[in-house]
């Protein structure tokens, strides 16, 4: 199963980036073979709609599931239309996260876990920046 994990770095020892739309990288990994690649997130510099742009890219990669910390309303709408499962609340290293995913320990998000623009504030990802 091909999954995308929001990551602060480019390898499996990196930690999960808690933001979806504004994450630094995506680690796209085959959960069975553990073969992976890192992809720069084109939406990091987007003036708006980062979640949509990131979701579009992930959908184009043909992944079946996304693992992240938090996800906003536009991203979740795009991902759900694309038929991609979303797991939120992930933390720790990418490697451990994949393990937890395989063990069924991650929580599926059916709706947004944060408001729009939450990922713009690096200090506190659950609050909107003013």
């Amino acid at each position, binding site marked *: 199963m091909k999954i995308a994990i929001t990551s602060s770095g480019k390898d499996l020892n990196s930690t999960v980036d808690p933001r979806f739309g504004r994450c630094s990288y995506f680690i796209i990994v085959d959960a069975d073979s553990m073969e992976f690649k890192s992809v720069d997130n084109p*939406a990091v510099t*987007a*003036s*708006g*709609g*980062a979640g*949509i*742009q990131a*979701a*579009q890219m992930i*959908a184009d990669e043909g992944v079946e599931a996304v693992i992240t910390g938090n996800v906003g309303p*536009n991203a979740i*709408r*795009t991902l759900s*239309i*694309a*038929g991609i499962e979303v797991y939120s609340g992930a933390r720790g290293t990418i490697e451990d996260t994949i393990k937890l995913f395989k063990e069924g320990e991650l929580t599926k998000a059916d709706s947004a876990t944060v408001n729009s623009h939450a990922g713009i504030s690096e200090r506190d990802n659950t609050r909107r920046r003013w």
Partner: protein
Amino acid sequence: MIVAIASGKGGTGKTTLATSMALAVGELQFLDCDVEEPNAYHFLKPVLKGTNSVRAFIPVLNPNLCSQCRKCVQFCQYNALALVKGRVIIFPELCHSCGGCKILCPTGAIREGEREIGTIQIGTAMEGIEFIDGALNIGNPSSVPIIRKMKGLIDEDRRVIIDSSPGTSCAMVESVSEVDYCILVTEPTPFGLNDLRIAVETLKMLQVPFGVVINRDGIGDERVEEYCKEEKIEVLLKIPDSREIAEAYSKGIPFVEVLPEWRGKLQALYEHIEGAVE
């Protein structure tokens, strides 16, 4: 003559100057183009005649005609469109109403829809002022269509004062474009100077003549004045850092009402600009 009042930095005194100058000059059109945070009405206290809805373009998709070519998605700089599972989805709240998606669509699958993005109010205030202000609805990305519509109400034979939004973003550019003159209000601080420089560069690109008003003169340092001297920018007026002006502002009172000696100075300033523009 149309005079816009802008600034780089916010909170330097655009509305303070614009409203007092409007009252001092009288018999003019006053446009509060800071539609994200209109506040001139607190000072001019207009009697409003009515509210008009401002509507802007949004794309509406006919999925039967869509060939999934992706041109619209790739074009949109605001990510208002996405294509997943062979289906274009539209996020109207991110659309800046440029219409590019509709122009580029090779199969005519996108037609023009519209939605309300804000309102314009028109009224009358003291001293024969025709008062116009706009308000952007919460959650909308672009104030430009509202400002454009407000500027369409300008009577070019009259004296006009435009109160712009701060900064140098699209809203400011739209507010000051094609005016006869722009007053940049700054404060004599490093922040004031930094943002003034950016505003000056913007106005040069727009080829709008401009001068500087230094507000809260006496605080900060001399660098704004030195900069203006070096750049040969006219310092039109200095307004001292005054507790009386600040107190009047906090109560929604234009400072010409508490310091009537400024009436003549602001009138003279407007006339000086008229002379310079001619």
